[in-house]
């Protein structure tokens, strides 16, 4: 049976939400930025995009392109709440909803059409409801698979609805640049052109599979299929996602950090964030990994250590993280720090420590967690973090899903 897949992509999502919340911003060029001092533009409104303002630009670059640009500080809770509302709406039409990111989702409506009508009807209803209930617009693509549905939604923005029927796939892909396919980035696009003389999807679909495999390895076969518009990957609802194998946090620092005191403070903050998350889900991990990116933005280092017993107390995570960090021998300014715990075990039922100092540490942690669970993260924290203006994560993780962590894989 031919599938019917919808891809929904909210238009300039963060900017549109801010324009809806503050009608004075409607029709004006705005850019949503993060909370940090040195920050980049996370989303620009379509009015700003007309001036060339783009995601990833620094504020000064945006203002150079558009002197009238209005900078709006982002509010992630507004966006996550809105995204959850949209996801709930999508689930009224099918249980097969895959939240691809905070502003994109796939729906498999193959078996919903008997109840709700053709996919196009469902799509129009969704667009109308999102506009009526939230004042936002989206672009929708409808096609026999996820690859083509996402391609279709990209074809008309904003407020588009594009259908790629099965009998027009070849015609549509023939002259389309390979870079338009989800999964083919600029680097791969250049390599395909340089080494294989492949520029369009049509050429990619006709390319020799052996040649693609020799050049690109295991993905060669998949690339050829993509060129032909073939994709049998299912729409995976969050409950059926592959298990999460680690718990981690990272933070991009508002300025390059050099002093050891500053670095240790950040590591302590990250340790508390990772520890709280692990404890909330009843997990502990044996392998701890530290990630460091330098101020040049390109040098990225990662090192890990595996312990004899799993840990999840913030202090244990911190002490281990400091040891790992010190062993990396980094003496240059740092832009990003990250800690993650993997090799996870369920924590309930672990042995009570024989040592009083460890038992006290566990009791203190439980007390801190109880207060923070009630009043919010970092309401009770370590003394050295009290001066920190920004505690906690202010970034929406690419792995964000409406219901939080699901299916954490344990050993």
């Amino acid at each position: 049976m031919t599938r019917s897949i919808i891809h929904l992509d909210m238009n300039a999502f963060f900017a549109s939400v801010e324009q809806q919340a503050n009608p004075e911003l409607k029709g004006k060029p705005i850019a949503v930025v993060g909370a940090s001092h040195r920050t980049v533009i996370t989303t620009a409104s379509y009015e700003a995009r007309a001036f060339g303002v783009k995601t990833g630009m620094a504020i000064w670059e945006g203002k150079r392109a558009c002197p009238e640009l209005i900078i709006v500080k982002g509010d992630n809770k507004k966006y996550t709440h809105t995204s959850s509302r949209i996801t709930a709406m999508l689930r009224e039409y099918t249980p097969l909803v895959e939240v691809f990111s905070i502003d994109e989702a796939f729906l498999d409506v193959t078996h919903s059409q008997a109840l709700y009508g053709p996919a196009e009807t469902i799509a129009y209803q969704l667009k109308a409801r999102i506009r009526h209930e939230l004042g936002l617009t989206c672009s929708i693509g409808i096609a026999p698979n996820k690859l083509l549905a996402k391609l279709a939604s990209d074809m008309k923005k904003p407020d588009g609805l594009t259908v790629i029927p099965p009998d027009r796939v070849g015609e549509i892909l023939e002259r389309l640049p390979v870079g338009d396919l989800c999964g083919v980035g600029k680097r791969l696009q250049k390599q395909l052109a340089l080494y294989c003389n492949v520029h369009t999807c049509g050429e990619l679909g006709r390319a020799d599979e052996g040649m693609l495999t020799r050049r690109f390895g295991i993905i060669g076969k998949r690339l050829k299929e993509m060129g032909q518009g073939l994709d049998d990957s299912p729409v995976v609802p969050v409950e059926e996602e592959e298990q999460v194998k680690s718990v981690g946090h990272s933070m991009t620092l508002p300025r390059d950090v050099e002093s050891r005191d500053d670095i240790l403070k950040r590591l302590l903050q990250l340790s508390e964030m990772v520890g709280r998350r692990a404890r909330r889900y009843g997990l502990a991990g044996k392998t701890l990994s530290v990630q460091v990116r330098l101020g040049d933005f390109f040098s990225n280092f990662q090192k890990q250590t595996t312990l004899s017993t799993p840990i999840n107390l913030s202090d244990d995570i911190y002490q281990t993280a400091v040891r790992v960090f010190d062993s990396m021998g980094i003496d240059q300014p740092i832009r990003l720090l990250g800690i993650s715990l993997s090799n996870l075990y369920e924590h309930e039922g672990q042995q009570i420590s024989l040592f009083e100092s460890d038992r006290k540490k566990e009791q203190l942690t439980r007390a801190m967690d109880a207060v923070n669970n009630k009043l919010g993260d970092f309401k009770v924290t370590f003394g050295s973090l009290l001066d920190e203006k920004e505690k906690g994560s202010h970034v929406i993780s690419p792995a964000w899903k409406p219901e939080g962590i699901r299916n954490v894989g344990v050993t």
Partner: protein
Amino acid sequence: MELIREPIRVAVVFGPGRQIKPVWFEWRRRKHAIQQTTYTWTDRVGDDTRLHFSVSDGEALFELVYSTARQNWELLNLQTE
């Protein structure tokens, strides 16, 4: 947006379908009739679910927040138009 974070009195209409509609609020002894609720969202701080309302009185934009745990309202942010 200017951060205010002050307690306020709010008159609210609760309707069917979980509708919550602030109608006016009083801040620093001045009554503001709400002309439009432009956006609503919720967030959680600890075990407290907070309802946020972005509202306009025709002169300025206000962010009102209701704490379900403490059952009180505060004016969180203000933007003059």
